[in-house]
């Protein structure tokens, strides 16, 4: 019988600063053969152990690649992430996963795709954006709208530059509060919708960000004419086990960890959340 609580050991291969409070970690299995069975899809997540401190869930923030490493992007915000931020290349961590359902991919082929990310909500969308760009001719128009509180809160600046320079993807970035060097859009991410020329009935939207942002963006999308089933988001909840046993992430009878974390707005509407 498999032990669903037993992590595999990974080593930090690389650490990259994203913002003043956010870092990306590239992780590599200590046993290289584990990579072969580590078959994940965008939208899935892993439970990362900092042994002696604890375990916490993070989305898989990179597409599967030939380098045999995967990335997580971590904002320093609690006990596990505080310690994670002090670790350097070579440090050993635990990983369980991939966990959860992941985003639809084949199901949305042929449609226009709209990504809406807020702040630290871009990491779950990033592998999906890259995988769709990797099969570019199988999708319609691809638009990425990304908003952050300030220019200093923008993650993946390299990716943003690469998407900006491509002809086959439209990227628009906005910040709530500009600094003296910012020449781009100012305003919440929803303020980009009128500029983005979105054909709502033809489009599937993938939305990820803080709860308040998701609420406003979904309202905007519905006003634009999006169908409930064409709006996807990934939900976050406090999790302990990630495998549907500890019950902490329940919303009604849905486990965010195993039934999600990706839900369509249509599903979310029928979820009985007592909270």
């Amino acid at each position: 019988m498999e032990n669903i609580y037993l992590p595999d050991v990974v080593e930090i291969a690389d650490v990259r600063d994203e913002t003043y409070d956010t870092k990306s970690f590239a992780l590599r299995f200590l046993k290289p053969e584990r990579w072969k069975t580590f078959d994940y899809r965008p939208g899935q997540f892993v439970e990362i152990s900092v042994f002696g401190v604890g375990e916490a869930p993070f989305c898989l923030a990179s597409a599967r690649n030939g380098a045999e490493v995967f990335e997580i992007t971590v904002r320093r915000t609690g006990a596990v992430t505080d310690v994670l931020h002090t670790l350097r290349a070579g440090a050993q961590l635990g990983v369980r996963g991939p966990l959860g359902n992941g985003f639809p991919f084949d199901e949305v082929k042929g449609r226009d795709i709209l990504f809406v990310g807020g702040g630290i909500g871009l990491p779950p969308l990033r592998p999906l954006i890259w995988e769709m760009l990797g099969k570019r001719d199988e999708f319609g128009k691809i638009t990425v709208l990304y908003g952050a509180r300030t220019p200093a809160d923008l993650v993946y600046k390299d990716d943003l530059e690469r998407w900006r320079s491509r002809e086959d993807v439209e990227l628009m970035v906005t910040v709530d509060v500009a600094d003296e060097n910012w020449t781009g859009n100012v305003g919440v991410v929803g303020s980009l919708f009128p500029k983005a020329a979105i054909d709502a009935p033809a489009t599937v939207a993938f939305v990820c960000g803080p709860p308040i942002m998701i609420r406003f963006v979904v309202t905007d999308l519905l006003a634009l004419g999006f169908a409930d089933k064409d709006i996807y988001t990934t939900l976050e909840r406090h999790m302990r086990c990630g495998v549907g046993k500890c019950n902490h992430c329940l919303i009604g009878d849905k486990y965010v960890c195993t039934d999600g974390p990706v839900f369509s707005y249509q599903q979310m509407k029928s979820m009985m959340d007592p909270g």
Partner: protein
Amino acid sequence: MSRPPVYVIAKSHLSAWVEKMLETAQVIAPRVAHGPDVAYGELEAPEQVAWDYSSSLAPLKRFLFPQTDTLLRWDKQADDGLQLEPAYDDTERIFLAVRPCDVAGVLFLDRVFTRDREDIYYLNRRKRSTLIALTCAEPGEHCFCVCAEAGPFLKQGYDLQLTRISDEYVVEVGSEKGAALVGEAEDLLVPAPEVLMRARRELEQEAKDRFADDKAYFAAALRQVTFDQVPDHLWDEMAERCLECGGCSFVCPTCTCFLVADSEIGDAGARERLWDSCLYEAYALEASGHNPRAERRHRLKARFFHKLSYQFAKPLEAHGCVGCGRCITACMGSNDMPAVTARIRRGAL
């Protein structure tokens, strides 16, 4: 099975039988804890079994899913990198003279811990467990197992089921494991004559009649919780009475929420899971500070949704209550299962 599946053992032979059990396994049985209280505990000698007890302070849960359970150990100084060692409990256990509601509680845990993905820590203990039920002729002060179809006699799920008929115990075999246990004590158990079988059937009917006095009105509560029809003011009023002690969760045979915590001394560490209660304020608190169940009424509602809704009852093949009545004893705010279901039925506190 070639042998008849029902046996009888004289009361005077019980000690000899328990002695045999003690030679092969750890035996957990009802024992006098303090004063009038009885609790399931490890047996050291056959005479410690409190055969005539009514109910145990706590259910069997803690023996299969301990309040603090080590999942892993590690040593960071190992030569070839971090080594993780799962900590499995391989103890063979016989649970003796267990009340039917508590056997039903274990059967519920079986489904929780095998649903979707299997929990190796629970199942490792469970497959080394033998359940010997002891049927109930008289209801205890808070018993309502009849309402939960969890007693006072079991139809299935036991390895052996004992029923006392004056100076003898009828022994029903419910599994291969139970048959083997009987086989090891052939000198003490003999096939039950028909007259005893009839006495046992009559006792079951009498017991059911006696238990019918105490009722938990599940039907209305199940429907209203399933369809989210319980008036909000009722959750508010019940939340006012909840002290967030977590007692109801801890004594409940079907509650299994847990959290996970690491501890470390030097380079050696361990990961443990610990019982949690969904009524605690920090239960759903996220690292960001966001708490989707910040208010107690939401947590209380979530608890009874998990216990009573059809959405959970369907995959778990039962509602999350076996009618043991322990929450009645534990809850200082009277938010116990019979009281809550009665309030939902009445639509008032």
